[in-house]
């Protein structure tokens, strides 16, 4: 008997399969298409193939994420804030703060000692401070593959400052910096720092105290430059899961196990 969690994000759809002991049997990731039902079904199929399990063995499915309601094969739908909290807590039982930066949204979640969500903040209406912000500035303007943004930014000696966190205005700022022949590594760190400042300000605005341990998840957590920038801004150590994109799907899978009872 296995349990599935599907997180249909704006950019990437994730699936996690667990067993009764909450051990991860397999996980998979797939770019989210306009057809979220298809994305959910596709990513689940991939995970089943990786784990060599058949669909019949799935006892219960919980879907979460931006496209959670569009995936009609799930038994239950839950918001991603709750799933992030549950999934992250299973990996880091002492976690008190979660920073999650995904493709089009960012979240800061505060948990109490028992793992209960006490506060959360999400971005609204605007892609500033999300993976999309990094993607636009890095691939379109800096002409760098997104994977290289983190490593190159760590070479920065004199980080650039972006005064705007608006994706559109930041674009022209980066162009100006390039025209001033500012080194790419300095601009890269400036971009990473801008996203770090944005997400921290969002949390502070929501009266989140960023108690430790702080766990950083979501696709952007793969960027070592953003990790460093968040640590510098918070003056705290930040933990990154080995697979930072699957925490919400893992939480959904754990809820699936609980609801199956």
């Amino acid at each position, binding site marked *: 008997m296995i349990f599935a969690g599907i997180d249909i994000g704006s950019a990437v759809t994730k699936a996690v399969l667990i067993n009764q002991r909450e051990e991860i049997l397999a996980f998979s990731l797939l770019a989210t298409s306009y057809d979220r039902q298809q994305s959910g079904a596709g990513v689940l199929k991939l995970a089943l193939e990786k784990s060599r399990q058949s669909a019949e063995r799935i006892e219960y499915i919980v879907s979460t994420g931006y496209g959670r309601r569009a995936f009609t094969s799930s038994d239950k739908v839950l*918001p991603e804030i709750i799933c992030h909290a549950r999934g992250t807590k299973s990996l880091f039982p002492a976690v008190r703060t979660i920073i999650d930066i995904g493709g089009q949204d960012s979240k800061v979640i505060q948990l109490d000692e028992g793992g*209960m969500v*006490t506060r959360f903040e999400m971005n609204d209406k605007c892609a500033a401070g999300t993976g999309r912000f990094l993607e636009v500035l890095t691939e379109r303007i800096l002409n760098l593959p997104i994977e290289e943004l983190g490593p190159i930014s760590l070479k920065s000696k004199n980080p650039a400052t972006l005064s705007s966190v608006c994706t559109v205005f930041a674009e022209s700022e980066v162009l100006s910096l390039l025209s001033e022949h500012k080194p790419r590594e300095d601009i890269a760190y400036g971009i990473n720092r801008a996203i770090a400042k944005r997400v921290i300000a969002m949390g502070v605005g929501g*009266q989140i105290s960023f108690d430790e341990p702080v766990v950083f998840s979501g696709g952007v957590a793969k960027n070592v430059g953003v990790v460093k920038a968040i640590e510098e801004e918070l003056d705290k150590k930040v933990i990154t899961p080995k697979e930072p994109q699957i925490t919400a799907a893992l939480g959904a899978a754990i809820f699936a196990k609980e609801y199956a009872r």
Partner: protein
Amino acid sequence: MAKDIYEDFLRLTGFEEDEMPKYLPEWRKASAKLGLTEEDVKFAVKEQLPTYFAIELEGIRKLLGCFIKETIDLTRASEYKERGAKIVYGILPAILHFYYALKLTAPDKVFVSFPDIFLTFILNSFFHKLAPYLEEAERTGIPYGCRHCALNKTRYAARRLGVIPSPDINWIWGFICDEAPKTDEFINIYHDPEWKTYITRLPHDQPLGTVEDEVISRVEYLAAQMKDGFEFVQNEIGIKVSEEKINEVIVIWQRYAAKLAELAQLMAADPQPVGAVSVRLFWEGLFTPFNTGIEAMEEALDIAIKEIKQRVASKEGILPEGAPKLLIYSLHPTVPWVAKTFEENGVGIPLSEFFLLTKKQLMPPTFKDPYMAAAEGWLRTSGMVNPGYQSEQICEKLETHKFDGMVFGLMDFDRWLGSSHRLLARMVEEKTKLPVFYIEGDNWDDRDYSLEALRTRIESICEIMKMRKA
């Protein structure tokens, strides 16, 4: 069901058979003036009203009818003016005793209204069609995103579109924000030189936590401000109001408030007897003057209380027994899906904090002088500008009605409230140890909502509450 959708609409909003010959043509005319089409009326009948309002209850239907009658009346304000009636407007929040006292003194010689309130409530709550007014305001001078709330934009657009006439006097209040007086200056300078305004202000200069109604100099100051304002209004329109009339209104106000306190008790019952949106408009009777009078509202309230009592007695509810319930700062039926989303996710938000009265607010005034009594009444509310005092009052309300937590926010349109809510949230959480949430958004105008993000927020709050309660 009648073939005429306008007639269906009136039936659904509690109009009696014998009222049809008078009101059907008037409603057709009024809805056309408001910019509502037959399709809009059909949408209200088929979708909006059945989805969000407990129209199976006569008291709720009658309540909706009171708002329709008032709106019909508002669209006839130009006719009243042509016939010589004096037009007096106001804005929210205000002390409405004075407007009612004018009406009681000279019922046929004066027309009183807070036009933006009725237009905003009717157009968005019933038809989800306020956007043309807001867009008109934004297109012609109050740009999108400049933090002018939907009420201000609606007031301006309604004048611009000819829905309402110029007032003889617009008595407005700077009790909370400064945007409303600025809007009236804007209307006067840019659009309507006849738009005449008198402003009564109350500075936000009290130390945190001051119990303002117990500071006699404060009460006297506000009373003097009100008296000056009311004298100005009376001189402008040439109608003299006796102090007895104001006292008469205070008695009516207190009677209505006591009935609302009973309704609040019923709404806080477990299980929650009806959806929050259904009853919310009853509270407008305390804060917005009806030119058509408060009597019909009171009658609707009496019926609703009786019906809801029966539901409470039979444990009939819209949520399961034991469902978590949150106090929301201010629930607006203009974005009815917010409350509905909570309820669909198993959490009740039956009452609005701002409209609940504390024990002290329900007590008779200390002063016999009507201005002092009115000033004391307002200061007893803590006025939304004194977080120290207000947080104490919120704690009392949370305790009285046994709420499991509280939701602030949905006030991003207001510079003052948008930020003070964060402060209040922290103070209430520290004092009560209950979970307190904040939701970004605008509870007048949902054009700018990211529906998915807001739904995620609400669903998350609901899940947290259910987990905590479990």
